[in-house]
C-alpha cells in the first residue's frame, strides 16, 4: 500500500485487539505516515499535522529510555514490546500494558501476542495490579513494574 501511495498520512489497524509489528511500524515511519489504532486515528485527525501524530504513551516511554544512562539502544518488536540494550548488562524485553487495572488475563494475553518478555511495564499510573497478575507474570519468568521500579530495575542485572 505504501509503495503505491505517497499521500497517506495515517495508517490505522482497525480491530481493537490487533497489534503492529516492529517492521510495519518502521515501514510507516519511513513513509512519513503516523500509525496506530482506530482510537489513535480519532486523536490524529484532531491534530494539525496528522502524519506527525504520536501516541503519547509510547512517546513518553521512549523518551524515558533515551534519557536512562544504562540504556544504549532500543529495538521495537511490536507496538507494545521493546528490547532494551544496556551497557554492561544483558538486554531486557519490556511489554507496555496501559490497562487501568492490570489482571492476570492481561499478562497472559500479552504473552500470547508478543511472546516471551522479561518485564511488564504497567504504564497507567492510576490503576492497580492484582495479586494474580503479579503471580501470572512470575510464572512466565517476568516481573510487573510501575515506572519508578522499572527505572531502578534497568540498572540491575
Amino acid at each position, binding site marked *: 500500500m505504501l509503495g503505491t501511495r505517497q499521500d497517506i498520512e495515517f495508517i490505522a489497524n482497525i*480491530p481493537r*485487539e490487533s497489534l503492529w509489528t516492529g517492521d510495519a511500524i518502521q515501514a510507516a515511519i519511513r513513509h512519513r505516515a503516523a500509525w496506530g489504532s482506530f482510537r489513535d486515528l480519532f486523536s490524529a485527525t484532531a491534530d494539525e499535522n496528522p502524519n506527525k501524530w504520536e501516541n503519547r504513551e509510547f512517546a513518553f516511554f521512549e523518551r524515558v529510555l533515551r534519557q536512562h544512562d544504562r540504556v544504549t539502544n532500543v529495538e521495537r518488536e511490536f507496538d507494545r514490546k521493546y528490547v532494551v540494550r544496556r551497557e554492561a548488562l544483558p538486554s531486557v524485553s519490556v511489554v507496555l500494558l496501559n490497562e487501568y487495572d492490570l489482571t492476570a488475563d492481561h499478562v497472559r494475553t500479552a504473552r500470547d501476542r508478543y511472546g516471551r518478555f522479561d518485564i511488564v511495564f504497567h504504564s497507567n499510573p492510576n490503576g492497580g495490579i492484582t495479586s494474580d497478575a503479579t503471580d501470572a507474570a512470575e510464572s512466565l519468568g517476568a516481573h510487573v513494574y510501575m515506572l519508578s521500579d522499572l527505572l531502578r530495575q534497568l540498572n540491575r542485572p
Partner: protein
Amino acid sequence: MTLDEITRALLLDASRIATQVTDAEWYLFGSVLRSADLAADIDVLVLCNSHEDVTHVRASLTDRCVSLPLHLFLVTRQEERELGFIAGQGCMRIYPLDFPPVSDYYSG
C-alpha cells in the same frame, strides 16, 4: 450501533459461552454507556470463577473482537474482590439479569 444493538450482540455471545463457562457475569462500562454512537471502543467486563474460564471466554470472543471494537476486561471473582472495579466504575450488568447483585462478592 446503539447501546441496545451492542447489548443484543453481546447477549448472543454470553448465552453461547454460558454452556461452557457457568456463572459468568457480563457488564458494559465506560464511554459506551454515555454515548454508544460516539464511543471508539466498547468496554466489556466478564466476571468469571477461574482463570481457566477467563481463558475460555477470551478465546471464544476472538471473532467478535474483529466485528466489534471490543475492549475486554476479563477478571476472576478473586481479582474483582481486590479491585472493586464493577462498583467503582459504575458497570452495567447485561447478563445474566436474574442473578444476585454484585455487592455479594465484596462480602466474602
